[in-house]
């Protein structure tokens, strides 16, 4: 194959744009999996569920998908709070996280996915906002708004999350719960309450990611399965609890995946995710930017 510079450049740029979507998808997981140590494998399924809801609600009242996702996110906050309350009551308190807790999240993921098939049918859904077919061109490089807007939107959401985690009292408490939950009790803060709140925020981010996802590409109920590999690979590469690490890993991942897709065909993209995940687990389980434990 002839090497084509503009093809490569475009591959990198749209990989970066894709990375924006991956970043927001992985940031929710960085909160639940990274900070709270809850292996929420249902996170991508929540994201896809949000995308379907955005299509249903946004399509019905003619609202922009991203705005619609923002409006729906309180609903997902409540769903997240509900899931965590249940998980805490039946698994965390009993010390059954490893086997039964994991099976629980698998069950939740499965119920969401099959529930979507039953409610909406197995076919792809899409919702095109008004800017979906506009493309800005800078020199040789294409900047499709369909990719750019969700990427910027995702980064905005992550920026707000960053401020929340680093500037607000509750955000700092979440960071504290990640380090030592028992110490929080000594400060008369209930760690379960903080975790519940943080898990709700994580589910909100899944909703925001779902809104971004539906603008970028059509979704089907099984879309979540492909995202599991991606978001976990990104989260682990980024060093688990690190938000900035997750963002950097997401961009890197988006570029690698997109350049692979450009040169070898899009059907190999899921293999890239898995290959990366395995390599990271085998050689740098502490993340690309982390120090060895």
């Amino acid at each position, binding site marked *: 194959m002839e090497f084509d510079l503009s093809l490569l450049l475009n591959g990198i740029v749209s990989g970066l744009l894709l990375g924006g979507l991956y970043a927001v998808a992985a940031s929710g997981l960085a909160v639940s999996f990274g900070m709270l140590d809850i*292996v929420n*494998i249902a996170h991508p399924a929540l994201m896809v569920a949000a995308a379907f809801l955005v299509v249903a609600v946004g399509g019905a009242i003619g609202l922009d998908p991203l705005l619609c996702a923002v409006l729906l996110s309180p609903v997902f906050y409540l769903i997240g709070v509900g899931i965590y309350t*249940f998980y805490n009551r*039946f*698994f965390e308190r*009993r010390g*059954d996280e*490893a*086997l*039964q807790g*994991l*099976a*629980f999240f*698998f*069950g*939740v993921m*499965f*119920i969401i*996915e*099959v*529930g979507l*098939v*039953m409610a909406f049918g197995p076919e792809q859904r899409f919702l095109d906002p008004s800017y979906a077919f506009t493309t800005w061109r800078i020199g040789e490089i294409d900047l499709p708004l369909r990719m750019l807007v969700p990427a910027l939107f995702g980064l905005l959401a992550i920026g707000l999350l960053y401020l929340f985690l680093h500037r607000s009292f509750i955000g700092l408490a979440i960071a504290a719960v990640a380090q030592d939950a028992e110490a929080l009790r000594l400060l008369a803060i209930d760690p379960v309450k903080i975790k519940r709140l943080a898990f709700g925020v994580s589910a909100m981010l899944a909703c925001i990611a779902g809104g971004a996802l539906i603008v970028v590409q059509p979704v089907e109920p099984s879309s979540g*399965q*492909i995202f*599991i*590999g991606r978001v*976990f690979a990104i989260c*682990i590469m980024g060093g688990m609890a690190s938000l900035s690490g997750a963002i950097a890993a997401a961009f890197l991942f988006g570029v690698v995946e997109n350049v692979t897709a450009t040169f070898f065909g899009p*059907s*190999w993209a*899921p*293999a890239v*995710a*898995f290959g990366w*995940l*395995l390599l990271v*687990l*085998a050689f740098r*389980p502490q993340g690309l930017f982390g120090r060895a434990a």
Partner: protein
Amino acid sequence: MSATTLTDPRGADRIRHLPFWLGAVGVALAVFLALRLIGNEYGYYAGYFVLQYVVLASAWNILGGYAGYVNFGAAGFLAAGAYTAIFVRKAFGFDLIPGILCAAVVTGLLGLGTGYLTLRLRGVYFSIATLCLAVVLQTLVVNWDYVGGSRGAYVIRPMTIPPFASYGEYIFLVMLALAVITVGIARTVEVSRLGRGLQAIRDNERAAEAVGVPTLRLKLMATALCGALMGVAGAPLPYYSGYLNPDAAFSLAFAVNAIAMPLIGGAGTWAGPVIGAVLLASLQQAATVTISSALNLWIVGWILVIFVTIAPRGILGWFGKR
């Protein structure tokens, strides 16, 4: 607990194997004779459906139940077994039985490889890796035209295979034998040093490592065995259905049932997965007649969540002891 009460090097030998095997073969024969008396092909069809889940659930239990390492990739391993059988049939003209052996080797190595890369870390990383494994294997198979790609592959079923009354009876008996062997292996593992080591890993991996249990080696043995048996469960699938496409081989039903059945029956005992598989698979087989397959799977998902919530030790847990 003092060491003297624990160490009895021949303890494993005292557990009687002969009555178990005689009993298992007896039950198998009784099932077969009952179906033969009924004489309906559907009986064999439904029987195969249940038995493949007995194999799959028992295989999952070796790693998941004893060691507490959750393998989400059952569908991937099963499909790898099925596609190995298709491949060796097309490439070398191998029939069902050699196909099953090849599938065991291939999926055993697949399990070993995945385990080798991820098992030195916490268990969740292994689980996440197996979760992605199925997606990637499906990508490979869909892109692999030699075994039919996304169009699927056909295995022409002969009408009869001489000593048996029908092809359905033959394939059922093969699966029956596989089920008996798998349950036997699972039970042997449970009472052997391997099984005890795995249970020590589940209860406290660091403590097990500290007292000299070779944790990584045992985990790798369990992963390879678990993978191989899942492949064995899948290898006869193309022969059973006559046609196999990636969607059917990588069906979500396998992934969820492989976890739901042992957990419902009682993970960590050889009998648990058998009970879970017989109950849940019979229920699904009966329900397919009346409700849609999606609703069927949805119910399985709910049963899984409800069971791990209210009965974390499964049905066997209701009967105390453990």
